[in-house]
């Protein structure tokens, strides 16, 4: 993992001091809420339904056991005993008091963490592939570049008040596991024919109201130029991105309006002055940072372990788990293990303080003290010895972290939804739970196979519903009611695509039935080992639509009095401005 030097530490410490003073000025009334809002947002602090929510940056998803224990401490000390891992590999806490947030930041700084730029109209946390450094299909380890970009974007003076938020994802493997096509900038670290490292640069991807798949702006950018090239993209966006309409302010709208050729011309005209200038990366700096990402002390092992095969023959649950939650590793005798935060009945992405402490212990004992947060809201132990699998599985099972459902029906990606978020039109988490319970049967899940269900409570798409094989979005037909649009055909990865809505929206209780009908079509139409998305691509949307709307969806509804009040607030929140 990257380790702070004195400079990194000083910058983060000074941020704590700065924010403590900003909070003091807000509490004393020196700062208006309007003035304070962008300041707190650039520190990841939102005012939600029940209180302040703090989003903590987990840079490119990498977290140490010590940092995980700090999350547990924060959950206990300042929150209600749990935290929520997000689709951008961060963690957020939902029940905080404003006056305590400076202390939380100080606690985080003590373990080399922060909440800088996890929200606001600035460059957000850089995200990456959860299997960086260990995936067999990795071409270039992107971690040093992710860290260098993190530092470059941290408090960049020119790009703190952009037209809108700005998200960068970086990947270095043959298969894109970082959704780089769905980001404002997507970077794919590649090698050219001479074996030199560079980046394929995508721009203008994004979800939200207007989902767009990113477009290539540069096929091969030598690594030395990555910071200056990104700087030029941001400068063009900062100057010309729309500021008159929040819903048209993302870079994708500018790229569409100018066309990729004109956008590229402007970027490269700006870049001409910067290229080979002082912002050019040096080999020394890349080596310095890469020195933090060297291999742990792997043992020399073989990939063949007879005890695992014997145990698999005896235990179906273990076999299922190995099939879904264990991934190959580039080093013989090692595997990566996904700890599922998607046990049916639980909130997707949530972990209790007790689980976090236990997860940290698992990381210490089985994976060199490191963990990764996935953008699908699970956790990864990246460097596990194959021979430890049985014991790890037993322990993870006891902690309710071993649901064998990674990439299956119940591995649902969900935003927090209307119970927590002022933007959401509809509840997400209860719907995720309801769907997971309906399809809990593990044999059925394994029969259906690879599928992604993504739920967002509104069109802002925090649940990345556009790239779910089945995407669900909360909509309001009239004030205070909740409806759900269902789309199919979305996908992430090398074959990224945006899902298409199948028809009129549904009520809360109709959605599981709709999914059931979609699955019936798939199970009937699929050829051999075809996955859900492959069948959708082959047969098109029509058979699915037809079957969903063939007969009336008669499902009993229990009306919800107030979708925002399902989780009762425990204390008064200062400066609370309710949405309704």
């Amino acid at each position: 993992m990257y380790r702070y030097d004195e400079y990194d530490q000083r910058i983060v410490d000074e941020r704590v001091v700065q924010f403590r003073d900003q909070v003091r000025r807000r509490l004393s009334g020196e700062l208006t809420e309007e003035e304070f809002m962008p300041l707190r947002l650039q520190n990841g602090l939102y005012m939600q339904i029940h209180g302040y929510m703090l989003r903590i940056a987990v840079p490119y998803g990498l977290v140490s056991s010590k940092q995980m224990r700090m999350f547990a401490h924060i959950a206990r000390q300042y929150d209600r005993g749990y935290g929520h891992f997000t689709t951008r590999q961060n963690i957020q806490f939902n029940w905080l008091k404003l006056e305590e947030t400076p202390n939380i930041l100080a606690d985080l700084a003590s373990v080399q963490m922060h909440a800088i730029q996890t929200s606001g109209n600035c460059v957000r946390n850089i995200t990456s592939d959860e299997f960086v450094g260990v995936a067999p299909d990795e071409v270039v380890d992107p971690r040093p570049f992710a860290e260098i970009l993190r530092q470059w974007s941290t408090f960049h003076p020119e790009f703190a008040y952009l037209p809108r938020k700005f998200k960068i994802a970086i990947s270095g493997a043959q298969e894109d596991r970082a959704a780089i096509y769905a980001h404002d900038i997507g970077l794919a670290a590649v090698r050219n024919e001479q074996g030199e490292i560079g980046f394929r640069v995508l721009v203008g991807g994004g979800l939200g109201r207007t989902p767009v798949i990113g477009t290539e702006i540069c096929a091969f950018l030598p690594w030395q130029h990555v910071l200056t090239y990104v700087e030029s993209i941001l400068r063009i966006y900062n100057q010309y991105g729309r500021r008159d309409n929040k819903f048209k302010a993302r870079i994708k709208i500018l790229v569409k309006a100018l066309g990729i050729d004109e956008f590229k011309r402007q970027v490269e005209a700006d870049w001409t002055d910067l290229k080979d200038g002082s912002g050019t990366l040096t080999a020394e700096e890349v080596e310095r940072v890469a020195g933090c990402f060297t291999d742990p002390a792997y043992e020399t092992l073989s990939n063949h372990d007879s005890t695992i095969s014997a145990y698999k023959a005896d235990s179906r649950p273990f076999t299922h788990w190995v099939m879904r939650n264990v991934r190959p590793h580039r080093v013989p005798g090692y595997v990566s293990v996904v700890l599922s935060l998607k046990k049916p009945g639980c909130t997707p992405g949530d972990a209790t303080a007790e689980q976090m402490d236990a997860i940290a212990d698992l990381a210490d004992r089985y994976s060199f003290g490191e963990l990764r947060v996935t953008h699908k809201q699970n956790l990864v132990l990246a460097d596990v010895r194959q021979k430890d699998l049985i014991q790890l599985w037993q322990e993870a099972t006891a902690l309710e972290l071993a649901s064998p459902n990674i990439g299956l029906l119940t591995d649902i990606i969900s935003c927090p939804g209307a119970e927590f978020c002022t933007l959401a039109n509809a509840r997400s988490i209860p719907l995720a739970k309801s769907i997971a319970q309906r399809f809990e049967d593990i044999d059925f899940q394994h029969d259906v196979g690879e599928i992604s269900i993504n739920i967002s409570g509104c069109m802002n798409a925090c649940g990345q519903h556009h790239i779910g094989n089945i995407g669900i979005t909360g909509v309001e037909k009239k004030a205070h009611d909740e409806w759900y649009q269902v789309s199919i055909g979305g996908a992430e990865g090398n074959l990224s695509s945006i899902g298409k809505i199948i028809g009129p929206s549904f009520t809360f209780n109709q959605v599981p039935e709709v999914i059931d009908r979609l699955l019936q079509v798939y199970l009937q139409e699929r050829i051999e080992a075809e996955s859900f998305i492959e069948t959708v691509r082959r047969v098109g949307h029509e058979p699915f639509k037809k079957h969903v709307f063939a007969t009336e969806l008669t499902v009993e509804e229990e009306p919800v009095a107030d979708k925002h009040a399902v989780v009762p607030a425990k204390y008064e929140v200062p400066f609370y401005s309710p949405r309704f």
Partner: protein
Amino acid sequence: MIIKNKEIIADDWMVLRLGEHDVAESVTVVPGKVIVPLQVWLKQRDALQQRAEIGVWLASDERPETLRDDIQKFTVIAVDFPRFSDGRGYSIAFNLRARLGYTGELRAIGDVLRDQLFYMQRVGFDAFAPRSDRNIEDALKGLSDFSEVYQNSCEPKLPLFRRVQRKGNTAQQV
């Protein structure tokens, strides 16, 4: 009073803002030290450039390149922040300094608040006129929020990795 070169000083420049009925061609520019809107400069250039000292200000949607040929004629160039959250002024300042080579006073005017000053000085502003309802001594503190930064801009010109010898993986493991 304004902040200039990290000190609070008296300021005798007047910022001319066009009123509802004013027209750039015909608005009267009073004698003395005046910072005129870009449009007034462009329309009254012949007369204004006779003055010993003149300033110009840019709105956040105006292009600094417009001043390319005149850049050394100004004692002051100001950039207006209509709202503190409008970040275009940062790129305007960067381009004035880094691309157009402007070396005179570069002043932030408009919705200029303490918590934006640190970033403003880094992209090339050396003078700040904080909003009049705010305490200028308090605003001054905003210039020293951080003692170190990562990236190059106008100030400093070099990124951290070119300025100092940074430690590698020898630091204490978290």
